[in-house]
């Protein structure tokens, strides 16, 4: 059924549009004046002002690999992140840890670990799925490059971004 929306009855003054123009001009002039004197500005002017101090705890920035306080690279190249990654951004080449090494018990470490930052969607699935607490989404959000190859983070770069992370759970420890 058609609904008839009643049109408001306008007074003769309102029909000239002039009172509306005057009221509207008052509003726009107020905004103009406020912004002219620097009040009411809501834009963050990006390269000079940054989000960094306003980022929430749970912010999902670039994924990166971490080293723990024992100097061990946490990743054991189980490739779970590679399999879970929705856009298939992660490529891992697993490598053996030779017997006699300090960390020989973990058997494997990535020989190469690549995350294609053009594909990455910052979903955090890799962090979620990692059984070894090896990959974390950092608060960095600036990924730039002039070529496609620049946008692929390799193992070295990933450890560089991730850095040292302490207080992680070691499966062989009693506490924590």
């Amino acid at each position: 059924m058609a609904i008839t929306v009643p049109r408001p009855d306008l007074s003769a003054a309102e029909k000239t549009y002039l009172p509306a123009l005057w009221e509207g001009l008052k509003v726009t002039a107020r905004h103009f004046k406020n912004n002219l004197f620097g009040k009411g500005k809501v834009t963050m002017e990006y390269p000079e002002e940054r989000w960094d101090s306003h980022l929430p705890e749970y912010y999902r920035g670039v994924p990166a690999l971490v080293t723990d306080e024992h100097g061990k690279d946490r990743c054991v190249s189980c490739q779970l992140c590679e399999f879970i990654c929705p856009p298939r951004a992660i490529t891992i080449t697993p490598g053996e840890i030779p017997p006699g090494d300090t960390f020989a018990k973990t058997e494997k470490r990535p020989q190469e670990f690549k995350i294609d930052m053009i594909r990455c969607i910052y979903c955090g699935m890799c962090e979620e799925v990692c059984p070894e607490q090896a990959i974390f989404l950092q608060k960095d959000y600036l990924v730039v490059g002039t070529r496609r190859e620049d946008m692929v983070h390799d193992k070295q770069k990933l450890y560089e971004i991730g850095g040292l992370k302490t207080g992680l759970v070691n499966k062989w420890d009693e506490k924590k």
Partner: protein
Amino acid sequence: MPDFIQPWLFLLPIIIKVVVVFAVVMGLVAYASLAERKVSAFIQDRVGPNRVGLPLTLLGFKKDLAIGGLFQPLADGLKFLLKEDLTPGHVKPFYYWLAPALTVVPALLTIAAVPFGSTLFGYKMVVADINVGFLFVFAIASVGVYGIVMAGWSSNSKYSFLGGVRSSAQMISYELSMGLSLVPLLLVMGELNLGKIVEYQAWHGWTLLPFTDLRIQWSPHWEISGLNWREILLWIPMLISFVIFTTAVFAETNRAPFDLPESETELVGGYHTEYSSMKFACFFMGEYAAMITGCALITTLFLGGWHLPIPIIHDGAFSLQTRTGDHGTLWGILNILTFLGKVIFLVIFFMFVRWTLPRFRYDQLMRLGWVWFFEIALANIVLVAVLLAFFPK
């Protein structure tokens, strides 16, 4: 000096005036586009263009000169010049190329008859001091519609076509009430020369503010001159004329709230949908030049043109007096600056209106033009004629 130059020397001041006026108008056009973006940004709580400075580092300096985006028009101009100039395959090339020129030229031509100052070094500050200046302005301004119609037709696309048709219908409708709204002014002043219209206002008070030649004397006896019943009564029709003329200028220059020819939500870009690069820039410049010309006309006809009333207390009397270039070069320059100030004020008012009002519907636009403004303008003429019959000069 060789003899054969002598008879041509009179051209020199004219050429200087033409070049200076052209440069100033083009500068105003460029910076009006920046002002529009800045004003709209401030009205909408944004920042607006604030980046473009002079890239001095390219010339070997240490730092770029960044002054709040003031060089944005330069960057825009450069961009327009360097962009690919695309002529689509489905257009009529001759008219397609002619249209941008036909839009920008009339807008710039009109300014020739507008007096932008009193006198300077004995020369009248107007490019073409013609006795039919008034008619010249209207004749040339209405030529501007051909550019838009041509652009719409030659583009051979439905958006451009609808934009062109809308624009021509709108301009022709409003031209009528625009012309009629000014007949009362002509009745009062009896003058078609825009320079003389301004001079009349300088000595008898502005059309819109008839008390700008006020004189109050308290010693030796009380006397008030400069504002009489005739002026007060004529003030009413003059206000009506002002409202109609200003609104018609909005419609003539295709500015919001009458920007139906290029209403981007319906018609993509309107009549200039198919244009790119410098040809688009020509339409853009034409629009802004038309706006500046329109503001200059409103200033000339209603706001006293270059006239600035100087308050002076002398011999027991307060009076608002007129100073022209004949009183000294500085006064002449002040007159020019006054004119520029008034025009810039009006341009900013135009921008405020654009970012305040929503667009009219097409039937509202036509109703406003034909039913209201046309009739009111006609009645206004009769009113002024009757008033003038009772209060002759």
